[in-house]
């Protein structure tokens, strides 16, 4: 297991190195000189340009620039955004945390609904319930996310007016950002409208969560169903039945534990589509997250912000996929003692 862990860790380090190289090269890959990329409309004064050249070590060689870039990242000195002159690091932390809240709540919803549905339809596979769930998940999988999000807005926000249109909390509430996690911040805020703020935050998160969770949910339904049907045809399940265990006991003690490691792997693999979907949905719901910020920065050609977003999101995805890989390997005794995997 330790050797496996070290191999995976090496992979992580190498991938992050390559990603940082890519993100760093973005400045040079833009058309024109790097300084032009930082100053596309030529509005900066000479002194400001000097400062940028110094900050990015633009007068030195490629690798010195890269070293400077890395040391800037580790010092938390990520530059300032061209759009609103806010330090990128602060903006990144707060927007990424808010993206994470949305993504995690959508994934949790997907798991809480998708996995049980998958289990039930595998358990009664071939029944009308299974057929309904399978066809519904097929429909869910083929719905474009932006359309689905707009439909939710049209029906539930504009039509029935159950939920607010956009944002993540009512404009009336002023919650100081401490932990960057909204619910904790509300709990920490010593406000007489705490309850109302909490309610408002919950109402705001429901629609985007529903919009995002469709894709991981349908994927989890299908994966769970297929894996469990596959497992239930394995010999050891037959043997467990021959022991006289009930179907429920067989499912609970043998089928589900065997499904666990592939479940973890699939959750890891779903991180990437999950974050992509979250970005689109953030833009539609005007959720102040990393995705919306990235899209705005792309439009405004704000290279430092694009670099920061890209690096943060991709490093996050890689970390999650490696962590889930390790968890999956650890939960399977056959892989636990192998150094290759």
């Amino acid at each position, binding site marked *: 297991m330790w050797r496996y862990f070290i191999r995976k860790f090496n992979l992580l380090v190498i991938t992050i190195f390559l990603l940082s190289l890519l993100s760093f090269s973005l400045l040079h890959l833009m058309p024109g000189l790097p300084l032009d990329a930082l100053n596309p409309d030529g509005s900066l004064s000479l002194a400001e340009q000097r400062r940028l050249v110094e900050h990015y070590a633009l007068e030195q060689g490629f690798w010195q620039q890269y070293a400077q870039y890395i040391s800037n990242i580790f010092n938390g000195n990520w530059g300032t955004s061209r759009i609103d002159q806010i330090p990128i690091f602060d903006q990144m932390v707060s927007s990424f945390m808010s993206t994470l809240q949305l993504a995690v709540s959508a994934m949790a919803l997907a798991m809480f609904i998708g996995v049980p549905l998958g289990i039930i339809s595998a358990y009664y596979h071939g029944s009308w319930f299974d057929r309904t769930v399978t066809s519904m998940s097929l429909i869910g999988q083929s719905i474009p996310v932006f359309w689905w999000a707009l439909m939710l807005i049209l029906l539930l926000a504009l039509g029935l007016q159950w939920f607010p249109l956009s944002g993540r909390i009512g404009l009336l509430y002023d919650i100081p950002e401490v932990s960057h996690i909204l619910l904790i911040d509300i709990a920490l805020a010593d406000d007489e409208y705490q309850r109302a703020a909490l309610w408002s935050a919950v109402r705001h998160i429901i629609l985007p969560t529903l919009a995002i969770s469709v894709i991981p949910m349908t994927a989890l339904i299908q994966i769970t169903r297929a894996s469990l049907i596959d497992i239930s045809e394995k010999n050891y399940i037959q043997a467990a*039945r021959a*022991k006289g265990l009930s179907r429920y006991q067989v499912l609970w003690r043998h089928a589900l534990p065997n499904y666990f490691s592939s479940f973890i792997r699939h959750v890891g693999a779903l991180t990437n589509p999950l974050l992509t979907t979250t970005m689109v949905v953030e833009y539609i719901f005007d959720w102040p997250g990393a995705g919306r910020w990235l899209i705005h920065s792309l439009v405004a050609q704000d290279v430092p912000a694009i670099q920061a977003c890209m690096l943060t999101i991709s490093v996050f995805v890689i970390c999650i996929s490696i962590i889930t890989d390790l968890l999956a390997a650890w939960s399977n005794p056959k892989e636990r003692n192998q150094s290759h995997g």
Partner: protein
Amino acid sequence: MNLLDIRNLTIELETPQGLITAVERFSLVVQDGEVRGIVGESGSGKSLVGRAIMGLLSSKWRVRADRFFFAGQDLQQMGVDEHRRFMGQEAAMIFQQPSSYLDPIAKIGEQLIEALPEQRSFSLSFWRRSRERVEKVSALLHKVGIRDHTRIMNSYPHELSEGLCQKIMIAMAIANEPRLLIADEPTSTMEATTKIQIYKLMAKMNQLRKLSVVHISNELETAANWTDRVTIMYCGQAVEAGPTEQVVNQPLHPYTHALATLVKRDPERQMLNVMPGTMPTLQHLPTGCRLGPRCPRAHKDCIEMPRSRYLRNRSYRCHAPFNLEEKHANAAASGQTH
């Protein structure tokens, strides 16, 4: 008393093309304490019989029989789950490739504890109860000849050899004190010495605990060594049944004859007596006797399906049996048909 009494068992598979009969009118009677062999090539339906007895066939298989009794209980009267639970208590089954029948992510000890019969002993504390279970499991392992029980109980199936896994399967099988053990080609992937160990173990269980054994095998040779009676299957039919010694030494059916010459290792006839051709698939059975196209003794009567004939304590399904005097054959053909 008959422990297992099956009369005219028919097993059919539902397919989009219609029903396929995999086992046709198969009869089997197993006495208490008997070792019974079922021998046939792969595809002859012998494993299906074992699974049908245990109630392990999935819902796409249709099972019906004129009599299907175990220990005086009518299995056909039971529902699927009830059947399985009842047979799970009264009988046990071991398979080929035993490691694939052990849950890969649970420790051997846990799986053995699971096989122990449920006990309602609320008076004992949780710790005492679990210690008692561990003791019982190690006693089981000792019984099947495994001495280092602590190491085995803490291992996972992939860490053990097939032979050890089969011993563990047998330990699980005897945990419930069953009356019948169905062994479905239990040694087909093992080395010769391991094979002998497994058979010795099963023979010991049979002698010490009066455990009846149904041994399903694809070679007459392994079955011949230790079974009391044997049934030969071909294409889903029992072609011959009787006391093992008589079947091997004086086979009646041509198919048994071919198998038996392989057992006797008659060097001059061994090569000659391998039957030509292969077993037909169930979708393309020949008319009449199913062995017909391959049979060296086939004649014009064989386009009619031979019925089971009984002769003393043997039965066979052939128009032109070996080793039978004309007088007997006529008597059998005319009078004692069934």
